[in-house]
């Protein structure tokens, strides 16, 4: 098994009408053994910007700490929050710094810009950005997630419908992956509110 499959993960972010959803599974494993079923893969950078990190869990935690640090410095200097596009550039640069000894993570970035326009992107482990207008996926269940999202996605969904779509796509994809699942967590973010829901999934 490759180093990206050591802990197991599943992440998906989707764009809706003036809102976005980002969802992850909750399993932390060591190859086939499940260690925890409440692992946090999605973290808040600021109220309108969330980042999910798939891949090796230790690198995901360390990378998140570095990103939070850089964002706090930015907030002190600029006296405002970072725009999602700027943050994506920051992540890409940080990852490429380690080009010959990379972090074994694939980030999924989701945020709401100043004009309430949702922004999502994903990257490989050395910082190649992939912007998308509809959805982005990462993790060991990525191939299943691509299929599920492609068939379930429609543009301009309202927050409630977006939540249903993202949850169904996530749960059906992780049910085909040995290394991810054991529940799910979905963040639906719009201009005025964030709703965090925990999903009841198959625990096998």
């Amino acid at each position, binding site marked *: *098994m490759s180093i990206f*499959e050591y802990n*197991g993960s599943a992440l998906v972010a989707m764009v809706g009408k003036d809102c976005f959803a980002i969802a992850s599974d909750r399993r932390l*494993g060591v*190859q*086939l*053994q*499940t260690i925890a079923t409440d692992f946090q893969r999605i973290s808040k950078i600021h109220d309108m910007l969330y980042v999910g990190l798939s891949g090796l869990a230790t690198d995901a935690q360390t990378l998140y700490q570095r990103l939070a640090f850089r964002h706090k410095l930015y907030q002190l200097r600029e006296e405002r929050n970072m725009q999602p596009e700027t943050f994506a550039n920051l992540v890409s640069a940080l990852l490429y710094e380690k080009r010959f000894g990379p972090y074994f993570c694939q980030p999924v970035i989701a945020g709401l810009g100043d004009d309430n326009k949702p922004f999502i992107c994903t990257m490989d482990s050395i910082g190649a950005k992939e912007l998308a207008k509809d959805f982005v996926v990462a993790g*060991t269940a990525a191939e299943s997630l691509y299929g599920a999202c492609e068939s379930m996605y429609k543009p301009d969904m309202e927050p409630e419908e977006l939540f249903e779509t993202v949850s169904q796509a996530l749960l059906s994809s992780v*049910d*085909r*992956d*040995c*290394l991810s699942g054991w529940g799910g967590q979905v963040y639906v973010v719009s201009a005025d509110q964030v709703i965090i829901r925990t999903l*009841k*999934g*198959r*625990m*096998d």
Partner: protein
Amino acid sequence: MMKLDFSGLEPATLHQLPNDNMSDILSQAPSFKLPNDTDFDGFQKAAVQMVKPAKGTTTLAFIFKEGIIVAADSRASMGGYISSQSVKKIIEINPYLLGTMAGGAADCQFWHRNLGIKCRLHELANKRRISVTGASKLLANILYSYRGMGLSIGTMIAGWDETGPGLYYVDSEGGRLKGTLFSVGSGSTYAYGILDSGYRWDMPVEEAGELGRRAIYHATFRDGASGGVASVYYVGPQGWKKLSGDDVGELHYNYYPVTENVVEQEMAEGSA
């Protein structure tokens, strides 16, 4: 002059020789072809690694006062991908013999069916059913002759014969063990934990079935390569009977129901 029988002194060969033209073939010195490979020492191991699927599964069987409980999950995995959640891992060799599947699915299905054929032939030749000891030995000897060729089988043969309940563990390395409690597969360690703590000799059938079901459930929870449906079979004097086949996803919420978070607690944290 009487011909002395020197057949016992001849060196044993791995392969079954064809029955026609026996005498000229037997008179040749035994030999085997060498492989056309650069890596003579390692090619066999490489071949085994290529075909060897991981024994991603959980199966268990134990003998108790009333008979035998045999239980298994139903997930088939190819590396990280789940290829099926509905595989029959408890194979019905005949109405009083069960075999479990762990390792390569094709290997287990084929050789169990082959064993069923041999058991039937034994019945026809000897006018009585084969014992569990005999059936497991037949399988073990076949597997031993294919040792090193990449078969991947970790099976338990469970059945009821004239001497009562019988349980044997047989694997593709050629091992054969008689015992009262076994678990095989990547999830076996988790199942052993539940089995060893809950096992009693004089349990009623329902309690024993529940122990087997719980053990499979816990293994599917912790092991990534086990999941799907927990099937439980009971083998008694009248033969085997399927007790239950419960979806493990639903079993989890039966054993550990979701508790609602009380909102008051969160508000108290905020004010403190």
